[in-house]
């Protein structure tokens, strides 16, 4: 999420003096022949809201279960506050987990569910009611304390699960697809609620999700995973604007990928030959790319402008024909066929009402973008 300008930027991962709360050191996890986690090294810092993002089966849940103590690494070490977690069973760890199914105890009331962990902690008995009340207030569940889990709604159950896992004030809270069971509208509201609670309690959150929008909304940093490997770990903004690979660019949001050969044209400018008889695409890259290397030019649809007349003063202009229009209310996506039958998507905010739109199917159009709008990827 974007940080407001008047607040100091929260970026402990850029500060070499900061000690990470969690350290994965060359962690590998195998189930028989299957490699679920492949040599992961990763630092997570205090007060971070860290998202593990990837398709199902990419190993994100296994990584989280290793933090909770439900799986042990086959190789490598996991440190929490500098302490090796391998010999510590789940009930002795300073982490708590919010389960995907919520795993609320059906035979206990909301109140007793929240008090469950406290009764098994070092907290003196007489202090437990106050802590439970505090958690009920934090999650706005005061009215439901006497109810059983099956007597409340899905959204309320989600909040009970959150309150229960936060009650013991863990050093680290693990959230396994915490909003997966909620409908879209409730999910968006709850995302902001989660961020709010994370800020209020100052707890470090690690969240597992396959929903990239959710990860982008809540997280301070996102780790994109695939086949047990960390592909890119960065802030949501950098993941979106400067993905390090075609996989990440494609996984996060919508993107146009154009394959071509790069030729150096100055300090950090490259020309990409992508189709015969077409002007080369001018793009910039801070990386050194050898002459004639195969590259992938990635550009987000909202950075591509579409017009009926040839625009002046743009670094790149490509001619094409509108093949499809997807109207989404707030925005429209134009699928434009360019040389060689390749499709390029351009996204436009619908500032005018639909009847006043001047571009329609089969219209010849000009696509344009600046030389810094896209990124060059090598793989």
């Amino acid at each position, binding site marked *: 999420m974007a940080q407001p300008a008047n607040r100091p930027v929260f970026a402990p991962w850029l500060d070499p003096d900061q000690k990470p709360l969690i350290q994965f050191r060359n962690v590998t996890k195998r189930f028989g022949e299957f490699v679920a986690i492949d040599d992961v090294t990763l630092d997570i810092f205090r007060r971070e809201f860290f998202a593990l993002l990837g398709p199902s089966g990419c190993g994100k849940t296994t990584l989280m279960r290793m933090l*909770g*103590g*439900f799986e042990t690494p086959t190789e490598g070490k996991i440190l929490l506050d500098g302490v090796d977690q391998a010999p510590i*069973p*789940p*009930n002795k*760890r300073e*982490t*708590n*987990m919010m*389960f*995907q*199914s919520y*795993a609320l*105890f*059906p*035979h206990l009331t909301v109140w007793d569910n929240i008090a*469950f*962990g406290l009764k*098994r*902690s070092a907290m003196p008995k007489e202090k437990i009611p106050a802590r439970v009340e505090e958690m009920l207030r934090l999650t706005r569940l005061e009215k439901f304390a006497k109810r*059983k889990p*099956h*007597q*409340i*709604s*899905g959204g309320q159950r989600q909040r009970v699960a959150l309150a*229960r*896992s936060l009650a*013991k004030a863990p050093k680290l809270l693990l959230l396994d697809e915490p909003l997966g069971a909620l409908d879209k509208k409730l999910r968006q509201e709850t995302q902001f609620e989660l961020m709010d609670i994370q800020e209020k309690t100052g707890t470090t959150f690690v969240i597992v999700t396959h929903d990239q929008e959710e990860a982008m909304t809540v997280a301070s940093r996102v780790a994109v995973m695939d086949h047990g490997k960390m592909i890119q770990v960065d802030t949501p903004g950098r993941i979106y604007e400067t993905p390090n690979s075609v996989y990440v660019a494609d996984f996060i949001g919508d993107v146009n990928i154009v394959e071509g050969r790069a030729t150096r044209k100055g300090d950090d400018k490259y020309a990409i030959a992508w189709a015969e008889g077409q002007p080369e695409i001018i793009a910039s890259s801070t990386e050194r790319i050898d002459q004639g290397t195969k590259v992938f030019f990635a550009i987000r649809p909202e950075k591509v402008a579409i017009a009926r007349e040839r625009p002046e003063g743009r670094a790149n202009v490509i001619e094409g024909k509108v093949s499809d229009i997807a109207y989404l209310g707030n925005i429209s996506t134009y699928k434009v066929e360019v040389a060689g039958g390749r499709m390029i998507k351009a996204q436009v905010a619908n500032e005018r009402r639909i009847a006043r739109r001047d571009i329609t199917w089969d219209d010849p159009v000009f696509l344009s973008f600046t030389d810094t709008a896209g990124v060059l990827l090598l793989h």
Partner: protein
Amino acid sequence: MNRRFSWFNATSLTLGFAFLYLPMVILVIFSFNASKLVTVWAGFSTRWYGELLTNQAFLDAAWVTLKVAVLSSTLATILGTMAAYVLVRAGRFTGRTLFSGMVYAPIVMPEVITGLAMLLLFISIGLDRGVTTIVLAHTTFTMCFVSVVVSSRLVTFDKSLEEAALDLGCTPFDAFRSVTLPIIAPAVISGWLLAFTLSLDDLVIASFAAGPSSTTLPMKIFSSVRLGVSPEINALSTIMIGIVTVGVVTASLLSKRSIARQRAEEQAAVRTT
């Protein structure tokens, strides 16, 4: 659905129920016979029930049976639940299939063989036959039934509930005691009831395992009948039928009511959303 009265339906119903219940009805009727002759009706009387209460041999047998049933079903429930828990939860380990097969084998094993095997065991380890040996033998053959009932509940049990308990600071035993057990309690109780009834009416295995001073009620009834059916036996059997009927009806009412209550609670939950 055709709900009209039809002669065919009425006849099938009568025949079926007659086949099932006629013997018992006759037994109950003759338990109230005034005559000493079992098959000759001589008017209504409850004298055999009175005499039953003064028959020390029957009372002793009833006491032994009750003791054996309570002890063995409790032991079988503990052992059977443990076995079910390990077989469902422990995941894959060498010989798991063999173990689960071995737990369930006694269900299909002929009772005569189980009884004989128990007898040989008791003799070879020099255990004097009596109430203890019947309890042991009954525990052995009823625990697999408990195990079947409990494990069928455990396979549908959400494992993350136990993980959540561990995560919140429970030791594995505490997690079982305070989370798993309360949730599977209905299955454990019905396993206990099943073991209790099985023990109550077992004749074959008890005959092998019993000693001279420990005759159970089914054994007593069986041996008395060999000397001729007495009206007292009829009275005793009627009481047993009564006990079993009350037990079964209560159990089914209880479970029906708990289902109805759960449904009402779910509807209440829907209203609040």
